[in-house]
């Protein structure tokens, strides 16, 4: 196979190299005919293991943009009753796929800023992608709105152009432990031990770390610490480990298919803890209740939104109709709605600042409290570092396929079913 190189081969190689780099050059930020346009980039995992969530997040941002760009007097959402912002500026989205990989996400963030000429970025679901991608924005002094990434570390970096809407896993962990303490007081639940099951990724590991901190602060003992490889072929040994340790409560951080596998494996092994609370993602996926049917019932988790929250957030219903046309009927969940909020709040801030100047808009974002009918609590405000200090979520329980609010008490609408009903009595 040894191949003596000739001049021809050489120049052919060079030609291939140059053609590769040069000829397919993507649109160098095609200038649109319309002048009054603000380009916003979205960066979500549209392919790969968490593509479901990524595609929903993208649809949520599109929904928000539709509201901003067009007149929707029927919606009770800021900017709905006018066309565009800043006297006629329309928002144009440029979409990119991070594949859930940090290196791809970073490269796409750079491409969106430099080549597509976007003015700000919204993204990127995976905390591990949001980290490097937001660094790109920060260095370029551009705004990065982050809807759903939950790692608390993101907003502990003192960045000026980074804003995150969702509650962090730190707040959620504290809330979970509060729930357990409340149960101990009110219901004499006698919960003393905790088991953790989480996917061994940035998301799961970070959540578990925060959970351990919160648990030990409250004097609860962690008796089982079970990380697993996402995408596993079975969770038999994971559940068996939990079953043997038999903790009173289980805190879980599992995504989509892994969550359903976990529930089904517990059923198969005829074991359930007294109470199980999950971090947002897997549990609040709107298809879970439908797919798992009665098996999903009585499990709990934090939820930032669900269609059953209509009483608290009456404005969402009509917005959700637009969203459903883009997702084939799947409603918002707590993650995707945060991305819509991110887009809306950013547009509000641009409107208020009055100029398309990233630094001004970032200052405005920090300085004000924003009306946000799509957020639980209705307000958004950013602390230093960019965390939404008004971020709330409620601990809910699935009962009969619906997310019922349980804790905190002032938000509750249903009595908790405690402990989880044994599998053979359903």
């Amino acid at each position, binding site marked *: 196979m*040894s191949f003596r*190189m000739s001049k021809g081969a*050489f120049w052919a190689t060079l030609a291939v190299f140059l053609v590769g780099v*040069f000829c397919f050059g993507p649109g160098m930020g095609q200038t649109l005919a319309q002048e009054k346009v603000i380009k916003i980039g979205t960066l979500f995992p549209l392919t790969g293991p968490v593509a479901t969530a990524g595609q929903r997040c993208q649809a949520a941002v599109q929904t928000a943009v539709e509201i901003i760009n067009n007149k929707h007097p029927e919606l009770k959402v800021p900017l709905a009753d006018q066309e565009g912002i800043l006297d006629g500026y329309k928002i144009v989205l440029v*979409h990119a*796929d991070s594949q859930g990989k940090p290196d791809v996400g970073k490269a796409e963030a750079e491409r969106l800023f430099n080549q597509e000429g976007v003015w700000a970025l919204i993204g990127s679901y995976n905390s591990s992608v949001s980290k490097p991608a937001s*660094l790109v924005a920060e260095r370029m002094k551009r705004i990065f709105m982050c809807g759903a990434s939950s790692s608390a570390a993101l907003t502990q970096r003192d960045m000026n152009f980074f804003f995150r809407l969702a509650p962090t896993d730190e707040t959620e962990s504290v809330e979970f432990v509060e729930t357990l303490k409340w149960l101990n007081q009110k219901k004499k639940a006698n919960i003393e031990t905790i088991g953790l099951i989480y996917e061994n990724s940035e998301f799961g*590991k970070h959540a578990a770390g925060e959970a351990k901190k919160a648990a030990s602060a409250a004097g609860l003992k962690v008796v089982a610490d079970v990380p697993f490889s996402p995408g596993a072929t079975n969770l038999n040994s994971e559940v068996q480990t939990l079953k043997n340790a038999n903790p009173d409560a289980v805190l879980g951080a599992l995504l989509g298919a892994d969550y359903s596998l976990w529930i089904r494996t517990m059923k198969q092994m005829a074991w359930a803890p007294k109470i199980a609370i999950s971090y947002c993602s897997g549990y609040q996926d709107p298809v879970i209740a439908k797919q798992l049917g009665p098996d999903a019932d009585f499990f709990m988790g934090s939820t930032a939104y669900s269609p059953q929250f209509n009483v608290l957030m009456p404005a969402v219903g009509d917005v959700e109709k637009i969203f459903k046309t883009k997702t084939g009927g799947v409603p918002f969940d707590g993650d995707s709605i945060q991305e819509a909020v991110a887009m809306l709040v950013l547009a509000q801030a641009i409107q208020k600042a009055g100029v398309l100047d990233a630094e001004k808009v970032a200052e405005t974002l920090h300085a004000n409290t924003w009306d946000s009918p799509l957020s639980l609590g209705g307000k958004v405000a950013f602390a230093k570092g960019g965390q939404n200090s008004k971020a709330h979520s409620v601990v809910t329980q699935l009962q009969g396929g619906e997310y019922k609010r349980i804790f905190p008490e002032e938000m509750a609408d249903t009595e908790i079913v405690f402990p989880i009903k044994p599998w053979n009595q359903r």
Partner: protein
Amino acid sequence: MVGKSVDLKTFSAKDGLWVAFVVILAILPLIPAFSSNSFRLHVMILILLYASMAQAWNIIGGYCGQVSFGHSVFFGIGAYGAGMAVVTYGATPWPGIIVGMIMAAIVAVIISYPCFKLSGHYFAIATFAIVEIFNRGFLVWDWVGGALGLDYPIIKEGLVNLMWHQSKTGYYYSALVIFVIIFGTVRWLEGHRFGYYMRAVREGQETAESLGVNSAAVKLTAMALSAAMAALCGAFFAQYNLRVDPPMVMSLDTSMKFVLITILGGAGTMLGPLLGASVLIPLQEYTRAFWGGLGGGVDLIIFGVLIILMVVKQPDGMIGLIRDVGKWASNKRAEERN
């Protein structure tokens, strides 16, 4: 296709071509058409990086004939070397790069020693298994950051920290230097006695042994060299992305890249890795840029089909294609003469 037969020990016409090639590459960023478009520069950096990675693999996989799917382990060790130097110890990445390369070479020798007793597919799958073991191991190893990975802080840009924020030109020249180092080494090996030993081992271990080549030593040395080079590329990858975590660097996906690019270009040839990277990387980056945003993986569907087409049409790799074109051209010339 017969090139000029030259004394390989001296500077040859062929090397002159390489120098010209590198000079052209070095000038490219000075042309505004390249430098003003940072995505284009990004693609060029990736081509150089992946060509270098593939060439590093080519030492053991192409020239020596040992198909390893384990190179992401060495790549990862290099990345962690640089990453930990900066993130964990707050130093410059340079000592980390050196340590990473040495560690990679040591690990390569340790794991290859038993693996080299295996032949063909058994060896390939053993290296597969090793990647998975390292991947899971690093995911739970807290000292290296575990599943959380290592995130670079924002520190001063420049050669000292091997990090640039404003423009990518610094990265481009660093990648070019790595490219020159690795391709230069392989070029030197091609003419060196050791290069002949490697090819002898590839063609037949027994025959090579009978000629007095210590095949085990040759394979181990080649593997160590290859691993150290892969680690160098890994360190650059970490510096470029400012983040390291196990799925990013120590995964079968990454390993596949090493192999894919080399095979696609033409294994065991010096031009192969460069050709493969020049085709595959722009393909991957541009399909994503064009169609990735549509969602639904259209870019990857096209990417998959194109790989199949290329392989089916030209199983010898790009180099075979060029060879065919060359043959066709010289035949044509011969016809004209008649």
